[in-house]
């Protein structure tokens, strides 16, 4: 055990406790009188088989449709560092992630619905709609997560490629693909998990119960027929499924053979396919911008003044900010400790173990917040006044859900940094705070900024467990949107959604800029 192992073990233990204790609590509840478990043979029912098949199939398709184009778009962005409005476009790409699902569904319908700009009619409902919405959410995220891998390719390599007269294909094969292989599997896994656990999108745009995911089945078992054991079994099934997929993606994972630098300058812009790249960027930007634009137009036509001057609104804004920032802080803190430990392990040649730590941090995402929340509730309700614990619980669950994003954004950079400077640090006896202050902060602040911004924005847009716990006065903006939708106030909800978007954009921008430094992404 070294000094790094202890805090990391603590965090891992905490993760296990936060995920497993609620499951145990729910299982225990199942043995109490009044909670007869339904027929456990649901296992063999055609329903569950169909649900499993559909969950996997739609998640797989959505992942491929998001990640493959995203590689091309990220590459185009990487090779066009001087593109006008580039920073703005990349910031736009962070937005879909924070749009609450139900609002995004409305945006997608505004664009592709029967009265939309590109009317697809009823064929929207089914796999088409699911894919359109999932790609809207995940393509821009994948672009943001993949882009730094190009920026990690040293200038010298580009120059060498130039001198050797490499074709674009060879550059891709020998320069870009090896750099990408460290990050791509993780990004694919993350997006697979996001699509697998997608709920409102699948149920609303899926066209009917044919499109039922495991997540829906889990939710169902915690509602009319309150069956905690069934919920836990399904949640574990989902976890196992993700572990299987994770082990597949790890096969693709390779660390680069030559250690590469962090602070590279932009690659040379002499690219033969410039018009094609511009076209790709343009198409992707239009695709992402259309639903957002339709939301903007709807909101601007809505009762702006009525919504914005309401007394309770600004309280919700503060609640939302508080939850978003606290969750980001916890998540980035925990992620940092885990990643430092993983980087240490990798440094000492134990990359298998390093991957496990990485995996533990990423996989927590697939345990549904509803299951964790209900389980926590079961455990805590007899001991404490749960109402006093709403904030800590909501922040914990959001931090947990944000952890995979931290691992993905910060992980590769931190590992490369460690590999490159570890020996130097040892010879200079640079450690602890000084190491952070003089080495890690300057080199890692950019991914650190992105990670913090992502988690904060994500937590701000999450309905999460707040709705589950319910208190007299903890309304967040997302909850407010749902309340307005539930009260026929759809125009009001669009305005609130716009406010949430603007707020998220503001937070994202200030965190990324404030922590990350330069405006470039």
């Amino acid at each position, binding site marked *: 055990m070294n000094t790094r192992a202890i805090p990391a073990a603590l965090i891992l233990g905490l993760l296990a406790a936060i995920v497993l204790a609620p499951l145990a609590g729910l299982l225990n509840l199942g043995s109490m009188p009044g909670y007869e478990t339904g027929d456990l043979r649901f296992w063999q029912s055609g329903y569950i088989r169909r649900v499993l098949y559909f969950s996997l199939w739609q998640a797989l398709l959505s992942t491929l449709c998001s990640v493959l184009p995203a590689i091309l778009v990220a590459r185009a962005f990487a090779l066009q560092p001087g593109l006008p409005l580039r920073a703005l476009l990349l910031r736009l790409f962070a937005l879909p992630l924070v749009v609450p699902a139900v609002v995004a569904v409305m945006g997608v319908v505004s664009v592709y619905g029967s009265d939309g700009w590109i009317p697809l009619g009823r064929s929207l409902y089914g796999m088409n709609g699911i894919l359109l919405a999932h790609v809207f959410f995940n393509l821009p995220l994948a672009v943001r997560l993949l882009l730094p891998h190009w920026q990690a390719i040293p200038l010298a390599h580009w120059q060498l490629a130039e001198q050797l007269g490499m074709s674009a294909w060879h550059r891709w094969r020998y320069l870009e693909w090896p750099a990408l292989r460290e990050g791509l599997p993780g990004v694919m896994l993350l997006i697979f998990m996001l699509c697998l656990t997608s709920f409102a999108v699948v*149920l609303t745009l899926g066209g009917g119960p044919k499109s039922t995911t495991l997540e829906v089945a889990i939710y169902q078992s915690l509602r009319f027929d*309150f069956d905690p054991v069934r919920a836990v079994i399904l949640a574990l099934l989902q976890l196992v499924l993700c572990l299987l997929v994770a082990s597949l993606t790890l096969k693709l994972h390779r660390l680069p053979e030559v250690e590469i630098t962090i602070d590279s300058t932009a690659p040379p812009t002499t690219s033969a396919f410039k018009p094609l790249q511009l076209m790709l960027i343009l198409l992707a930007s239009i695709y992402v911008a259309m639903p957002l634009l339709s939301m903007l137009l709807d909101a601007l036509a809505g009762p702006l003044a009525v919504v914005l001057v309401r007394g309770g609104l600004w309280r919700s804004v503060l609640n939302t900010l508080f939850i978003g920032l606290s969750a980001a802080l916890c998540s980035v803190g925990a992620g940092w400790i885990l990643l430092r430990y993983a980087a240490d392990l990798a440094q000492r040649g134990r990359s298998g173990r390093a991957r496990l730590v990485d995996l533990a941090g990423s996989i927590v995402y697939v345990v549904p917040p509803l299951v964790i929340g209900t389980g926590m509730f079961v455990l805590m309700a007899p001991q404490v*006044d749960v109402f006093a614990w709403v904030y800590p619980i909501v922040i914990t669950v959001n931090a947990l859900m944000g952890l995979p994003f931290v691992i993905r954004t910060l992980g590769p950079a931190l590992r490369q940094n460690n590999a490159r400077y570890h020996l130097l640090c040892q010879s200079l006896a640079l450690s602890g705070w000084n190491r952070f202050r003089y080495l890690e902060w300057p080199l890692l602040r950019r991914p650190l900024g992105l990670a913090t911004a992502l988690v904060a924005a994500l937590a701000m847009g999450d309905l999460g467990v707040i709705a589950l716990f319910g208190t007299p006065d903890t309304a967040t903006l997302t909850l407010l949107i749902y309340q307005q939708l539930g009260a*026929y106030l759809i125009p009001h909800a669009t305005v609130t959604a716009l406010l949430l978007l603007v707020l998220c954009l503001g937070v994202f921008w200030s965190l990324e800029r404030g922590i990350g430094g330069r405006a470039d992404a």
Partner: protein
Amino acid sequence: MYWLSRLCQGTLLALLLVSGVHAAMPTLTVYTYDSFTSDWGPGPQVKKAFEAQCDCRLDLVGLEDGVSVLNRLRLEGKNTRADLVLGIDTNLTAEARASGLFTNHGLTLEASALPEPWRDDLFLPYDYGYFAFVYNKERLKNPPASLRQLVEDEDGPTILIQDPRTSTPGLGLLLWIKKVYGDQADQAWAKLSKRIVTVSKGWSESYGLFLKNEADMVLSYTTSPAYHMIAEQDQRFAAARFSEGHYQQIEVAGMVVGSQQQRLAREFLQFMLGERFQKIIPTTNWMYPAVLAKASLPAEFSQLIDPGKTLLFDDSQVAAQRRQWVDEWLETMSR
């Protein structure tokens, strides 16, 4: 790390404030659904009116919906903070009764506006409504006149509905079709499914899609057009009247056993059946108040359709067969 310690202090302070000590005044805690407590629901007005008369604090805790309220209460059991539960409906009362967590209200409901006389020792109704398909009169000229016509006319209107696994109106439609078609419900669903544009998780999603003209009709309530008439001065929306009658939903409140505030809870139930509370309901919850006479409703309510025959299963039958019926529905709809 100065800022970090400040942030920790801030977090602690916020936690203390949240858990803050309440005033010495007695507090009546009511679990309900959050569209009741939201600024647009009856909650704020109810709180103000009741606190003015009771010399107490009324704490309305909003959960996702009626189902969550009951689940929450069952999870908390004897440790619950709730003195009263408001917002479970007649499809859940049998399970609520079986939980043993409710106590006799000891009141009698004499002048109810409900079509049937109310007899229940544990629960008292505060409002009710009927499920219906709502449409835009300018876009759909000839709405179906019966459920059978909606189901069987292959060129009939497209519809948006909610999922009976997750939503109360969704379950309502399932029961409605069961009531009209009995054993032939599967065939009815098979026919209808061709014209279902999508099945959403909750009411909000499908109603939102309907307002974006994604389908001709949406499953909602007979009272929905009143919202558009009163709040938006919009006369375009109407509910289709079905000759078989409409499935009814009655929302009720009940006192939690072992509450320290029995007297206050009973006072609240009395207040709930009184004119002040009842007059708040029509234009905030958009339902029919359970006690108030039709004549005292806003004028626009007289333009709503008369549901004719009321359809309602016995709550114990719903509790016993819901799971099986939902499974059958899934089987038919997943084909």
